């Protein structure tokens, strides 16, 4: 292993920086970035890349293994997922497995509202064995792409069954990009007979647009979604979410990389008509850098923090009275990561030190992903 690494450092060639979840996480998911992972938002991004195969390491994200506590609406990762993209003439197509989307996130939110654990027989199964199909091409100056996500399974036990499907479409033309994601179906249930609990997702949409002007990138987003959980005719959770986000990023090219900074204003509403309505606003500032550290190594890091403006207001359902509008808690977050190139492979990971400051035998790399660029 040692010899391989040393030899690789001397011999391998520089490869594309397109990589994995760890890369986006290390750069705080800044909106001007394009990556393998951004094709889930804008499939037209496939046209910006060559052919690749990517593998995200982690545990199996199945409905019976997670047991996410009721106090959180996010499952602890990382989870296994992978896919590839190929060229077909001027077009691209891709296939991906294991990537969960908004349906899983909303079901987790409902489970949190109802105060039950996810990933066992007392709550909704999440998207199981999901798959994504992509197709992208160019028509004149327009680069466009389409994506389909699908997951359907029936455990035939008290664990229940679930189904989710959605479509995404996106385009890039010169300095402009736009995308729309639509949820087509989102249903789930668990329990049996009289104890059966049903989840029916509401129409979800995620509309995004961006405009690049020299070093500046301006973007906007509107997203909505939700769903209803019912047991024996009684509504347990009735969720309506909406999110508006506008912002900008300034990017500067540096040797073998990019330095960027920017800010955005986000307004989000999460309304569970059977529990609380949470309205938040936030003005996060982001700064990040990604550059070649050596011919075989890319280093990257970023920081985000709320600046000046932030608010959160929780309004319980009547007859309880609304809470006060409060500011956000301290949320300075530094992320750092590395991409190690081995010929056409890139091994990407986050530095475990990003949350502890320690680098040692038990704190080195995390959220590893391996990408092969053909």
């Amino acid at each position, binding site marked *: *292993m*040692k010899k391989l*690494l*040393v030899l*690789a*450092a*001397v011999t391998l060639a520089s490869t594309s920086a397109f990589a994995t979840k760890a890369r986006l996480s290390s750069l705080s998911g800044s909106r001007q970035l394009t990556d393998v992972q951004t094709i889930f938002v804008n499939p037209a991004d496939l046209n910006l890349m060559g052919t690749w195969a990517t593998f995200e390491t982690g545990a199996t994200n199945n409905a019976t293994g997670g047991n996410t506590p009721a106090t959180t609406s996010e499952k602890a990762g990382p989870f296994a997922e992978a896919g590839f993209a190929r060229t077909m003439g001027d077009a691209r197509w891709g296939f991906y497995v294991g990537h969960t989307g908004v349906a899983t996130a909303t079901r987790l939110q409902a489970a949190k509202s109802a105060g039950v654990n996810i990933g066992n027989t007392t709550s909704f199964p999440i998207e199981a064995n999901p798959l994504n199909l992509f197709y992208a091409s160019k028509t004149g100056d327009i680069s466009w792409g389409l994506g389909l996500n699908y997951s359907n399974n029936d455990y035939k036990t008290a664990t229940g069954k679930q189904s989710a499907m959605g479509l995404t479409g996106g385009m890039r033309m010169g300095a402009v990009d736009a995308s729309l994601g639509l949820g087509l179906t989102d249903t789930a249930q668990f329990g049996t007979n009289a104890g059966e609990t049903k989840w029916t997702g509401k129409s979800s949409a995620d509309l995004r647009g961006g405009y690049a002007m020299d070093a500046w990138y301006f973007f906007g987003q509107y997203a909505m979604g939700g769903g209803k959980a019912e047991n024996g005719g009684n509504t347990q959770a009735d969720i309506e979410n909406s999110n508006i986000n506008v912002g900008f990023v300034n990017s500067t090219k*540096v*040797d*073998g990389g990019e*330095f960027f*900074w920017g800010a955005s204003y986000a307004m989000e509403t999460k309304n569970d008509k059977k529990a609380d309505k949470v309205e938040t606003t936030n003005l996060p*500032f982001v*700064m990040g*850098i990604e*550059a*070649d*550290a*050596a*011919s*075989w*190594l890319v*280093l990257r*890091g*970023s*920081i985000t*923090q*709320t*600046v*000046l403006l*932030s608010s959160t207001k929780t309004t319980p359902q009547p007859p309880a009275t609304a*809470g*006060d*509008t*409060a*500011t*956000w*808690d*301290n*949320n*300075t*977050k*530094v992320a*750092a990561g590395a991409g*190690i190139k081995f010929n056409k492979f890139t091994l990407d990971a986050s*530095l475990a*030190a*990003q*949350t*502890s*400051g*320690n*680098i*040692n*035998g*038990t704190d*080195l790399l995390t959220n590893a992903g391996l990408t092969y660029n053909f």
Partner: protein
Amino acid sequence: MLKSLITASAVLVMAAPVYASKARMASLQNAASVTDTYSIFDNPAKSYLMGDFATLEMGATTTSKTGVNTPENVITNGNVAGITLYSPDAEGGFVKSYGDSKIGFYMGKRSAFTARMRDLAGFAGQENPIEVMYAFQAADLKMGASLNYSKSEPKAANRQKQDAMGLRFGAIGTNWDASFVMGLGSNATGKDGSTVTTGVNTLADKDATYKGTTGFKLAGGYWFDKLYVFANYYQDGAKLESTVNGNMKVEIAQSQYEVGVLDTMKADGMNFFYGVSYIGFTSKAKDVAGPAPAVPVIENAFTQEQTQLPFIMGVEADATSWMTLRASVKQNVILGSTKPNTGDSTTNIDNNTTVALGAGMKFNKFTLDSTLAAGSVPGTAGSGAIDANNLMANASLTYMF
């Protein structure tokens, strides 16, 4: 794995400037003669002593601790047994040139005094602090100023609201530097149950208030060839009012002066320095009102007189083309006394020899800096061990444009 990467990088990476981060300054005992990206928080004009940079200090998101760079010389209280005042918090920012000017923006940097004092008294620390910096030059004179700001109001049960603001001014010439740091306000109200960890006494209840009093720091230095002579004076304080244990009131006033000299020796890729400084520190609890037994506890906790004559010695040098190693020692010598509490007699300074080690690994224009866990850095006792579980701590990543 790590060893292989380091070995490989030795062949490939290029030398880069060694300006780095909190870990570097901690590894060099925060020596006054050392210039670093972190120096801009003492004197914004020192941004001209280095190139443009972006720096990221890794660590957790916290509200009440200060980073490892907090100078040990800034003493806020002598009665801190059992309280951890340091942690490698997340913070970062950048400084870039625009023409002859420099503009900087930084997030997560907290005032050492405010963070310590509030933590000791059970009040919330600065949340989401930001700092905006501007520097410019006129002939050989470089000047800079920065504004830092933090405000939060959680409006939740057992949570405090707080605000803090301050200004920094600095100037440097060909062989001198001067700076002035001024607090513009520091307030906190109410109890935060999650952060009341004081070993002194719990002052902060739901009606308690913390109000900063006049705080400033004046500093300057002059280079006589290779000899750096420096002096600084700071004073800071706070008024605390609480209904805990009756209606308690106390005003804490602290001041400190330091004069010192450092002899430096520089050669290709190497910087060696040694020197001493004399420090006088005073902390007083004034206008204390309230019932016993809380009052004597507060008085004792915030009353102290101390003098020190710390000797420091350090070296920083390129160990290879891709790595800089640094080490330093600090110990009080000959003179030094402390009178920790009211009524106590004056005693000598306790044994306080500390050795700090650090490393900076250069990857093209990146520098990955850290302290070596084997050495002593503020808040951590040196173990002397270097192994898989005790290797590097307080890591940071800096990119020099």
